[in-house]
C-alpha cells in the first residue's frame, strides 16, 4: 500500500514556521487565516500497513513534539455500481 | 563536405554560432550526433571555454616562489611551509542564484568545496562575496535572505567554517545578483593530486550521487545567457544540493587519496561528466571510453546526452588502476558513497561514449577542449556617456558631519554584517584565530605553529568609475586586510563578474580591470593562482557594475599576535600610516549624496603603499600594536568609528589639515594604535579613550550612537 504520513507539531508546541506563514499572509492580502501549522508529509510504500503506527512512533515522528496521521494514498478501489 | 542545414538550427538553441557549428562540421568531416552536439555546445560555452576572456587573462602574472599549482588545475596551490600547501579558488554561481537563490548559493558552495578536495586538500574555510540590489527592494531582500540561508545550510552542514566575506548593495545588481564563493584547503604537499588521467587500461570510476536531470543545460547554458523574461521556466533545471552526500564524498575522497588508491581526481561541475572527463583526458593526453549504461541513474530513461551533461551535484570522477578498484569500492562503501566503474583510459586520444551498445559519441578530445575559437575583444572606452544612472540622494545636502557619519555607518554597504555572519559557523575545525568582525582578515592557525590569513574584496562601483584603478584597488585592499593581521600575501584568486563582453564598453571594462589587477599583482609581487570568469551578467534593463572580486591568501608567523581592529586601551596613541590621499570619487558618501559615478580614483603611490604595508605588518608581528585597521569605504571617519564600536571605547582625533573624513582611497591608509613608544616615528593623530568619537572641529558622536547606527543598518531590512 502507498501511504502518506502527515506529521504536524503537537498542539501548544512552538511552531515558528506556522507563525511565519500566518504573519506573511495578511501582508499579501489574505486576511482571516488563523491557526497555521507547518508539518511535513512522508510518502511510503508498505507491504504491511499494520506496522505503520510503529514506524511512525519509532522513526517518522518524535511523539514528544509531533502528532501524525496516516492517510492512504492508493487510488480508491473501483466500485461497481449496482442498480 | 557537409554544410549547416538551414532547417536544423538546434546548435543555435544550444548557444553555438553558425560559424562555430561550421567549424565543428569541418573538423569532424560530418555533422555531430545528438550526444556530441550537446557535449560540444557545453564545452564551447563561455563558461567552459573562456572564449571571450582567455586572451585577456594571459596578462595576469601567475608565477611566484610559493606557487605549487597555478591556473588550469581545479584550484591553485601555494606552499605555506612545513610540507603543507594551501589550495584556494573563488568561483561564481550568479545565474543559478538569481533563478533559485537558496539552491544556487548552496550548490555554489558545494562546487567550490569539490574543486578544493579534488586537488587532495581538506577544505578549511569558505568566504563569500555577494552583490544584491538595494535592500529597499523586496526582491533583493528575498535574494539576500535565501542566498545566505543556502550558504549556511551547505557550509555549516559539511563542517567547513565560513570565516569571512563581503556584501554590497547597489541598484545595478537588482536583476543580476552575484554569488561568489571562495574556499581554502590544506594538504600535505605529497597528497596533492592533478586531474590528468593516465595509463591506458586504467579504470574510470564515478563517485558519489546518482545522476538525474539536474541542471541539464543548467550552469553552462545559464552562465552564458542573459537573463530575460520567463526565468521561472528555467527553474526545473537548477541543481539541488545535498551537503550530507558532499560531506561523505569529501571524507571518502580524502581517505582514498591518503591510501594512495587514486591516479587522478576531478570534480563534476558545469557540464558534468563531459567537462570532467574531457579535462582529465586532455590533461593526460589520453582518450577515455565511457559506458553510459553503467552510470547509476536517479530516474529511468535518461538519454545519453542527458547523462553526459547532467549537473547532478556531489559527484567526482577518478582514475584507478584495475587491481585497486575493489579497494576503492570497499572504502567508499564504508562512507555510504557509491563508486561505479563507468569506463576506461585509452590511448586513442578520443572521447568515446557508448549507450545501449551503440557508439553515441566519438570525438577527438582536442575538439572538446582545444578547438573552440577564441575571440578577440573589441574594447572601446565610452566617452561622454554615463553607463549607469546616478544613485538617488539619501543624504541631505546640508547634513552635518555627525549626521553624515551616522548615515554612512547605517548605510547598507557599511552597516554591521552580524545578522548575516551569525548564520554561519566560523569555528568548526578549531583553527579560527580571528572571527568575523574581530579583524580585517580571517586568521586560521596552521599545524606548523604559523597561521594563514584570508580576505575577499571587490568594490564594483569604484571599478565602474575607473576600471583599471578600481580593480587595482581591490588587490591593494585585500593586501591591506592581510597586512592588518600581520600576514604577507602568497597568492590570489579572482572572479571576474562582468556584462556582455561582445559590447565594446564591457570589453573595455574587462580589459582595463584585468590590466589593473595585473599591475597591482606585479607591484605587490602576488601571483594569480586561479580564478573564474562570469560574463553576460546582464538583464534587459540593466548591466551590473564591472565587479572583479579578489580573494587573497597570506601567511603570518605568530597567530597569537594576529592584529585586531578594535581600539583596546584608553590612552593609546593612534597613528595614520600610508600615503593616504583620498577623494570622494566613487565613495559611499558620493553615493549617498546622489553623485554621478565618475573617476578618476586616487593615483596609487605604489612604493609608498608597499612601505606602509611593511611598516604595519612588522609592527603587528612584533606584538607592538593594540589594533590595526585599514581605511576603506567611508573614509577615515568610518574607519575610526569601526575601531571605536568594536572596542566599545571612544577616541579623540585631530585629522591632518585638509583631510576629508569621508573621502576614500582603498588599501592605502592604515589606522594603528598602541603605546606611544611603539608608534615612534609615525604620524600620531589622536588618542583612544572616553565614550565618544571626537574629530576635533568636525564632529563628536557617542560610541553608543555609532554602534546603534551600525547595528541597525541591515536589521531594519531583515
Amino acid at each position, binding site marked *: 500500500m502507498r501511504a502518506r504520513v502527515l506529521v504536524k507539531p503537537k498542539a501548544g*508546541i*512552538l511552531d*515558528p*514556521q506556522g507563525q*511565519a506563514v500566518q504573519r506573511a499572509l495578511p501582508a499579501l492580502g489574505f486576511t482571516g487565516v488563523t491557526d497555521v501549522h507547518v508539518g511535513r508529509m512522508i510518502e511510503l510504500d508498505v507491504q504491511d500497513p499494520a506496522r505503520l503506527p510503529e514506524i511512525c512512533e519509532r*522513526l*517518522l515522528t*518524535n511523539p*514528544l*513534539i509531533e502528532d501524525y496521521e496516516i492517510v492512504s494514498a492508493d487510488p480508491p478501489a473501483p466500485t461497481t455500481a449496482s442498480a | 563536405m557537409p554544410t549547416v542545414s538551414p532547417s536544423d538550427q538546434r546548435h543555435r538553441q544550444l548557444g553555438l554560432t553558425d560559424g562555430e557549428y561550421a567549424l565543428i562540421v569541418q573538423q569532424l568531416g560530418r555533422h555531430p550526433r545528438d550526444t556530441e552536439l550537446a557535449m560540444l555546445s557545453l564545452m564551447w560555452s563561455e563558461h567552459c571555454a573562456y572564449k571571450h576572456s582567455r586572451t585577456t587573462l594571459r596578462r595576469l602574472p601567475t608565477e611566484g616562489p610559493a606557487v605549487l599549482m597555478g591556473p588550469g588545475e581545479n584550484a591553485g596551490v601555494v606552499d605555506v611551509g612545513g610540507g603543507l600547501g594551501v589550495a584556494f579558488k573563488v568561483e561564481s554561481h550568479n545565474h543559478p542564484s538569481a533563478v533559485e537563490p537558496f539552491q544556487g548559493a548552496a550548490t555554489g558552495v558545494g562546487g567550490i568545496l569539490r574543486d578544493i578536495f579534488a586537488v587532495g586538500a581538506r577544505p578549511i574555510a569558505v568566504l563569500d562575496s555577494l552583490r544584491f540590489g538595494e535592500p529597499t527592494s523586496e526582491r533583493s531582500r528575498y535574494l539576500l535572505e535565501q542566498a545566505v*540561508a543556502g550558504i*549556511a*545550510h551547505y557550509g*555549516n*552542514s*559539511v*563542517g567547513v567554517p565560513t570565516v569571512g566575506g563581503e556584501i554590497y548593495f547597489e541598484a545595478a545588481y537588482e536583476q543580476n545578483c552575484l554569488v561568489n564563493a571562495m574556499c581554502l584547503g590544506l594538504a600535505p604537499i605529497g597528497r596533492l593530486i592533478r586531474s590528468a588521467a593516465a595509463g591506458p587500461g586504467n579504470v574510470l570510476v564515478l563517485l558519489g550521487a546518482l545522476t538525474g536531470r539536474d541542471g541539464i543545460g543548467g550552469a553552462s547554458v545559464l552562465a552564458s545567457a542573459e537573463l530575460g523574461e520567463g526565468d521561472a521556466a528555467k527553474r526545473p533545471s537548477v541543481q539541488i544540493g*545535498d*551537503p*550530507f*552526500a558532499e*560531506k*561523505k564524498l569529501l571524507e571518502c575522497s580524502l581517505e582514498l587519496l591518503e591510501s594512495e588508491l587514486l591516479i587522478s581526481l576531478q570534480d563534476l561541475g558545469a557540464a558534468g561528466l563531459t567537462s570532467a572527463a574531457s579535462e582529465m583526458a586532455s590533461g593526460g593526453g589520453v582518450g577515455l571510453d565511457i559506458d553510459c549504461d553503467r552510470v547509476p541513474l536517479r530516474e529511468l530513461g535518461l538519454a545519453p546526452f542527458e547523462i553526459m551533461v547532467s549537473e547532478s551535484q556531489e559527484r567526482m570522477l577518478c582514475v584507478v588502476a584495475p587491481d585497486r578498484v575493489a579497494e576503492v569500492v570497499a572504502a567508499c562503501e*564504508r*562512507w*555510504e558513497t557509491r563508486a561505479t566503474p563507468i569506463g576506461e583510459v585509452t590511448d586513442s586520444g578520443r572521447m568515446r561514449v557508448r549507450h545501449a551498445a551503440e557508439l553515441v559519441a566519438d570525438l577527438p578530445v582536442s575538439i572538446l577542449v582545444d578547438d573552440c575559437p577564441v575571440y578577440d575583444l573589441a574594447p572601446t572606452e565610452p566617452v561622454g556617456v554615463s553607463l549607469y544612472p546616478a544613485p538617488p540622494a539619501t543624504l541631505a545636502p546640508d547634513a552635518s558631519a555627525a549626521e553624515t557619519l551616522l548615515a554612512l555607518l547605517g548605510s547598507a554597504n557599511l552597516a554591521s554584517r552580524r545578522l548575516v*555572519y*551569525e*548564520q*554561519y*559557523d*566560523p*569555528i*568548526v*575545525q*578549531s*583553527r*579560527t*584565530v580571528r572571527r568575523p568582525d574581530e579583524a580585517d582578515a580571517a586568521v586560521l*592557525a596552521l599545524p606548523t605553529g604559523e597561521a594563514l590569513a584570508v580576505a575577499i574584496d571587490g568594490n564594483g562601483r569604484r571599478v565602474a568609475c575607473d576600471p583599471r584603478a578600481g580593480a587595482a584597488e581591490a588587490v591593494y585592499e585585500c593586501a591591506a586586510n592581510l597586512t592588518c593581521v600581520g600576514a604577507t600575501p602568497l597568492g590570489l584568486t579572482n572572479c571576474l563578474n562582468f556584462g556582455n563582453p561582445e559590447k565594446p564598453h564591457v570589453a573595455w571594462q574587462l580589459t582595463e580591470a584585468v590590466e589593473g589587477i595585473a599591475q597591482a599583482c606585479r607591484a605587490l609581487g602576488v601571483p594569480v593562482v586561479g580564478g573564474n570568469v562570469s560574463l553576460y551578467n546582464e538583464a534587459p534593463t540593466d548591466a551590473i557594475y564591472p565587479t572583479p572580486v579578489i580573494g587573497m591568501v597570506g601567511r603570518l608567523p605568530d*597567530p*597569537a599576535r594576529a592584529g585586531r581592529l578594535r581600539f583596546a586601551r584608553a590612552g593609546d596613541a593612534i597613528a595614520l600610516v600610508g600615503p593616504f590621499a583620498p577623494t570622494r570619487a566613487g565613495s559611499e558618501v558620493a553615493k549617498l549624496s546622489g553623485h554621478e559615478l565618475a573617476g578618476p580614483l586616487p593615483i596609487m603611490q605604489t612604493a609608498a603603499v608597499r612601505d606602509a604595508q611593511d611598516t604595519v605588518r612588522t609592527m603587528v608581528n612584533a606584538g607592538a600594536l593594540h589594533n590595526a585597521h585599514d581605511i576603506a569605504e567611508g573614509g577615515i571617519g568610518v574607519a575610526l568609528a569601526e575601531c571605536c564600536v568594536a572596542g566599545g571605547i571612544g577616541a579623540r582625533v585631530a585629522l591632518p589639515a585638509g583631510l576629508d573624513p569621508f573621502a576614500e582611497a582603498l588599501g592605502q591608509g592604515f589606522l594603528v594604535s598602541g603605546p606611544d613608544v611603539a608608534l615612534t616615528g609615525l604620524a600620531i593623530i589622536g588618542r583612544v579613550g572616553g565614550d565618544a568619537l571626537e574629530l576635533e572641529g568636525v564632529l563628536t558622536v557617542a560610541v553608543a550612537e555609532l554602534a546603534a547606527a551600525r547595528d541597525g543598518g541591515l536589521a531594519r531590512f531583515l
Partner: protein
Amino acid sequence: MKFGVIRFPGSCDEVDAQLACQRVGEAEILWHADRDLRGVDAVVVPGGFSYGDYLRAGAIARFAPVMVEVAEFARAGGLVLGICNGFQVLCEAGLLPGALLDNANLRFVFRQVSLVVVSSDSPFTRACEPDRPLSIPVKHMTGCYYAPPELLRGLQERDQVLLRYAPGHNPNGSLRDIAGVCNAARNVFGLMPHPEHAVDPLTGSIDGLAIFQSIRAAVADRLAV
C-alpha cells in the same frame, strides 16, 4: 582516562571534541557502525549534522549500531556527554528528557553566549565555579529546548537543568533559558553550546575546559573507588 568520541556520517565537530578531550586525557574516535566502545571511560556524542539531520536532527543517528552500546554504557552508569547534535541524538534516543526544536527565528545561529551554571552537582559541572558564568559559543539550527510542563517541573525539582543561558543570551527560544540538562541518574548530559570550542585562548575562551575537567575528575574518583 580515555574518552571515546563517536563519528557518524555527517559529524562535523568530532575532531574538535577529540582535541578538547586530549587536553585532559586520552581520546579516540569511535565509528558509528561498530558495536564497540573500545573500553573508553566516557563517551562524547559530538556536534555536526549526523545523517544530514534529515527527518529530524538526531533521529537517524540514534539507530546507529554504536548507539546500542552507548545506551548500555549509560545504563551501567557510564558518563555520556552530548554536544549540540549529540544532545539532539541523546534526546531522540530517550537517554535525555525533552526535545530540541528549530530555533525560534528559523535561522542558524552562531554566537558566543554567556551561560549560568545552575548546578555544579554533576560529573559534568563539578569543576565549574557556581557563581562564575561561562563564555562558550553556540552554533546550531535546532537548539530550542522543549519539554512538556510536567516534565519541565520534574527537571527543575530534580536539579537536572545544569546550564542556562544568562539573561538576554538565549539564542534560540529555549524554554526557561535551558542550555543543558542531565538525566535523572546524572550520568548523561546534553548541551547545545560547544565547550570543545572554548578550550584554547588562541581560538576563543577557555571556559569549556571546566566541562572536560569535571568529567576527568569524576572518572578519576570512580576509578579510585
